[in-house]
């Protein structure tokens, strides 16, 4: 059991910034979904923000590259850039495993 998951009913609020359906964005979403199902046991919500449709939303989370995952909850806010295919790096970035 991971440290975060052990907290029980912690609600995870995640945002994925994409630019339409580029291959990396799709890959990122698929990876994220799988990871959440595997590690968060259903206690999560994913909000997909398409910056091609609403570029002004990039300012809020200071998005530079796409895709980018933002962990809104639990705090503090965390950001992971990329298609999330390196599971180990994502788990570290989300505080789901302790950095070695």
């Amino acid at each position, binding site marked *: 059991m991971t440290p975060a998951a052990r907290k029980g009913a912690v609600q995870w609020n995640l945002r994925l910034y994409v*630019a*339409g*359906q*580029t*291959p*990396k*964005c*799709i*890959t*990122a*979403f*698929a990876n*994220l*979904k*799988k990871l959440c*199902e595997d590690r968060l046991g259903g206690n999560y919500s*994913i909000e*997909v923000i398409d*910056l*091609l449709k609403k*570029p*002004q939303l*990039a*300012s809020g989370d200071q*998005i*530079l*590259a*796409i*895709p*980018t995952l933002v962990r809104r909850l639990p705090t503090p806010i965390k*950001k992971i*850039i*990329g*298609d*999330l*295919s*390196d599971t180990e790096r994502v788990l570290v970035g989300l505080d789901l495993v302790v950095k070695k």
Partner: protein
Amino acid sequence: MSAIERSQTRDALEELRARLRAAQEALDNVRGEVDAIVVEGSGGPEVYAVVNADQPYRTIVEEMQQGALVLTPTGDVFYCNRGFENMVGRRLEGVIGLPMTGFVAVADRPNLETLLAAGAGRLETVLRAADGTEMPVYVTASRFGGTPAHVCLVVTDLTEQKRQAAREALFAKEQAARAEAEAANRAKDQFLNMLSHELRNPIGVILNGVEVLDQTGSQEGGPVRIREVIRRQAHHLGKLLDDLLDVARVGQGKINLRQRPIDLADVVSTASEDHRSKIERAGISLTVSLPLAIVGVEGDRTRLVQTIGNLLDNARKWTAAGGRISVSLQQVGHVAEMRVRDTGIGIEPQMLGRIFDLFWQAQSSPGRSAGGLGIGLTLVRRLVELHGGSIEAASDGPGWGSEFIVRLPVTKASVSDEAKPPAPLHAASQRVLLIEDNADARNMVSLGLELLGQTVSTASNGETGIEMALADPPDVVIVDIGLPGLDGYEVGRRLRKALGARVRLVALTGYSQPEDRRRVRETGFDVHLVKPVVPADILREMTTMETKDTS
């Protein structure tokens, strides 16, 4: 520097480091894990996506009607196009990451798993949308990428195809049903035809027998009345048969009216007088009121007499003794309007539309059932319609009598007086040969003709008949068409060939279809008589032939 200031500086540094790390990460990833960047422009952030060389294919995939998916090696949806989104009624986010098997009907899941495990192949299955609706689809799978490979699926909607197939199947079924119904109908016609033939023969024999008894039997009251009953009932049977056959023939459009301008008043008068005795015997009074002027219609006299007769029969059947039947005719504009009104049991209002249906009879009052086959009114309507007219039934309800109104178009053509008086029944003695296999019919017809002064010899089959005719040529040969072995047509042909024009050939048949008449005529017969016939009819036809000859 105070402790607070130091702490603030440390936090600022920490934040700066985090930002640098993010920027570094972004730069590192531009080469690998990202394919779009955000640049702060004068009008706000702008997004620059890497346009791949496969962009055209992407566009095609997004625009196509079929569903297209990429599955992970474990069978989860990795990507789907807009077509698939529409099929399952969910957006991409609601599809990605879910197992593909969740989108098909439960029963088909093992099949889909087999297909995905194989990585290539085809499958017909049922797709389940978010709202539970199902869609028949065709799924094509192909492998993609390295090991373990992704699987690409193309999903085609089969709804329209299935609907078309169902329509075609239904159409084929309907056609088969129609063919079956038509075959059954033909069989019914053949049966009716045969039935009438088989029943006409005995009726003819009975009528002949009565005729013979009239001449030779007791002339006392009892026997005379009994003969009258037998004659009447036999005629009645014959009429029922005729009606039955007529209904079938009208239904098939096989009745050809011989229409000519006739006076409908004359027809109504004839038909009413024909039925007067029968009606009055039942204790019912009959009044007929006709216009003085001629009411001309394009009509087949025989069929119109039959029509009015059927209406009168119907009125008589449903009226008790002491009742009244009235027949009236009047011309209203260009329409001849004939009414047959009775004081009988009447008709329920809701039944008025149905009484012209075949085999329908008022079943509501079993005690008043008057027999019959329920075909008379059907035949009446069909005959009236064949004449371009219409018929309507009216009644004020049960117990208040009924009225039938027939309307026929009035013709402007001048009406010729074509009522022909029956030919006189005295004829010079002729030598007649009768070829008939039915012994009763043979005896009765020959006896009847002899009583009318003719010299008759008989044969029971075609071969003997021909031999006799050749050995001693008679004036007239009467041939039953339905002979066993050498049939009547063949006998007639051979006699005509051997004896030439000097012999008169009379055909007796139980069939009265137009094709039978044509065949009889083509074979060389002079006269065609349909059973039942009585000797007087035969003699009348023989006499008419002679009259035609001498004129």
